[in-house]
């Protein structure tokens, strides 16, 4: 196991055990380990900073509420992303009802922001079963195995959805691909 992964695994075990004992530093420890990744994932899902902050906070609050059930067996990170995903999907449903606009311009040049908005709009039009693998594997760089665990599907099913999703996104982007260097 590489040094970073081993260190993270040990730290994760320490904080989960501490959380079960009611140590007030434990949630902060897990937040310092995973807060940024969960926030980024939520932002990719929701295209909105404020909503992503809410979803991140709620994800860690769920960790706290279920601290007695947590096991430091390597599945924690997958479970954390699964919680975040479910919260984001709930929020997207609410947004759809309220027709709130997305906010995909988080950084970069105007040209890249325009490209990002177009790509995210195309992504949003895809079925959820295609969006999930694209966000997890291509945007967030999870391995196929990890993404499959988060989505609770097999690796072959994940890959099949990922490949079909890429083709569907390609078809939506159409002429934009010709114009993008």
């Amino acid at each position, binding site marked *: 196991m590489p*040094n970073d992964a081993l*260190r993270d695994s040990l*730290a994760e075990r320490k904080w989960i055990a501490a959380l079960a004992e009611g140590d*007030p*530093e434990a*949630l*902060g*420890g897990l*937040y*310092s380990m995973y*807060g*940024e990744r969960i*926030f*980024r994932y939520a*932002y*990719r899902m929701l295209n909105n*900073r404020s909503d*992503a*902050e*809410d979803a*991140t*906070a709620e994800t*860690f*609050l769920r960790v*706290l509420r279920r601290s007695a059930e947590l096991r430091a067996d390597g599945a924690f990170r997958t479970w954390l992303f699964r919680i975040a995903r479910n919260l984001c999907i709930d929020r997207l449903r609410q947004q759809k009802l309220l027709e709130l606009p997305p906010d995909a311009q*988080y*950084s*970069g040049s105007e040209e*890249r922001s325009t*490209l*990002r908005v177009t*790509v995210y709009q195309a992504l949003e039009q895809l079925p959820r079963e295609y969006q999930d693998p*694209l966000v997890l594997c*291509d*945007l967030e*760089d999870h391995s196929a195995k990890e993404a499959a665990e988060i989505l609770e599907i097999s690796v072959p099913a994940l890959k099949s959805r*990922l*490949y079909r999703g*890429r*083709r569907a*996104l*390609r078809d939506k*982007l159409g002429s934009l*691909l010709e114009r*993008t260097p």
Partner: protein
Amino acid sequence: MKSEIYKKLVDLYAGNELPAELNDQLEMAAFNDPELAHDMATLRKTVDILQRDSEPEFTEESYQRILLKMYSRGAAIQPVAPDPAHLQYSLPMQG
């Protein structure tokens, strides 16, 4: 039949998952097959656009706002700074 196989290979090609030998073979095949060449180029570009997308910035303000949201919902949370670099690795003991 062969084009069906190529189509499956293109999915792997787009994600840079093909071994070098098959990658070269597919690129050779695309020379004489404009449809295959278009499929390969556009699909790989789609993947590149996604993978090159810059990460949403996790600002200090966002970090603090999330902490505040947790406090306000009753969580007893104490921020923890990452371990300093010199404490992150244990050195082997010499007996």
